[in-house]
């Protein structure tokens, strides 16, 4: 299983690609607020969810689609690691 740093990096790359952000993945801080600093709204959040499922091969339940859990890269990485460990 990928370590948490690698997971964070892949999440950042996916976010930049899928949300068409004009920044490099490295510019996104692990604790940056995605809604406040990158204008992540409900449309973007859905894109992130679909992106995680594609990139990491995990399946997220509706109950897990919490706005809070997807508010920073660190929190998203925790969700991904938990899902990967459960597989």
């Amino acid at each position, binding site marked *: 299983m990928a370590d948490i740093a690698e997971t964070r990096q892949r999440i950042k790359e996916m976010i930049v690609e899928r949300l068409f952000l004009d920044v490099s993945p490295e510019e996104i801080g692990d604790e940056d607020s995605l809604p406040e600093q990158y204008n992540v*709204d409900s449309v973007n959040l859905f894109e992130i969810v679909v992106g995680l499922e594609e990139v990491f091969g995990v399946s997220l339940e*509706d*109950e897990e*689609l919490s706005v809070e859990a997807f508010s920073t890269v660190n929190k998203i990485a925790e969700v991904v690691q938990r899902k990967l460990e459960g597989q």
Partner: protein
Amino acid sequence: MSRALQPLYISSGGMRLHGLLHGSGDGAVVVLAEPFAEEAKCARRVLTEVCWALVDGGLRVLRFDYRGCGDSDGEFESFDLDAWREDLRAAIAYARDTLAPRGLGLMGVRLGAVFAAETGGEVGANALVLVAPLLDGQMYWREQFRRTLIKARMTQGDQVSAEELRAGEQNEYFDLGGWLVPRRMRAQLEAVNLGPGRVPDFGGPCLVVDVGARLEPSPPLKTLAEGYTHGEVLAVRLEPFWQRIGLVDGTLLAQILAGWLGEKGLGCMAVAPR
């Protein structure tokens, strides 16, 4: 060709559909089948760019609102996909009978692409363009449900229960971001299937366009294009414009579609009308 814009009305199923004719002259006409509900609203500006690019390429474009949508007669929740399929046929008949085109192209976007694919062979269109077609209706409805859930949680907080929202699916109507979707409409949406082996018969040139973050077309859309005798597929790296109001620059997509239809002879070459 001048960028003329003419409002018009089309009769379908006893209702009056609001339409717009982009362009003038006697060239070929492309009938545009728009996406579903909120997606149509969001896609409006980019599709207008596409329409004008086609006009600049020598075509005319006929777009219209399905019954119960936009400025057409009726309430959204009173109709279903079969009514909208009938509307597309009515628009095509209007194009043929009233606009006397030198050729007919059919372009559909999202759910409209499903209608266009179903109709292209039947009406003998000269070319077919399917932009980000829905391939799997069940998956589409699941996406819509999740979008609704995320939107509710964004605005009302994470305490919004997925279970309660799911229970709402059993009601006569499901509120899809302000669009009341009756059970029958939902069942028809879920029945949409353009998967392998389900490609409607069409012998002319067909372009399948994947729109999104990918640089390469997705495998399912490649498979769809391969199902056509003269199918082509390409990816346009562009935000899904049917989810964003007014934020997406559709210039590249417009140029690509105008170029492809021109290559297929619709923009500059006379094609015998049926």
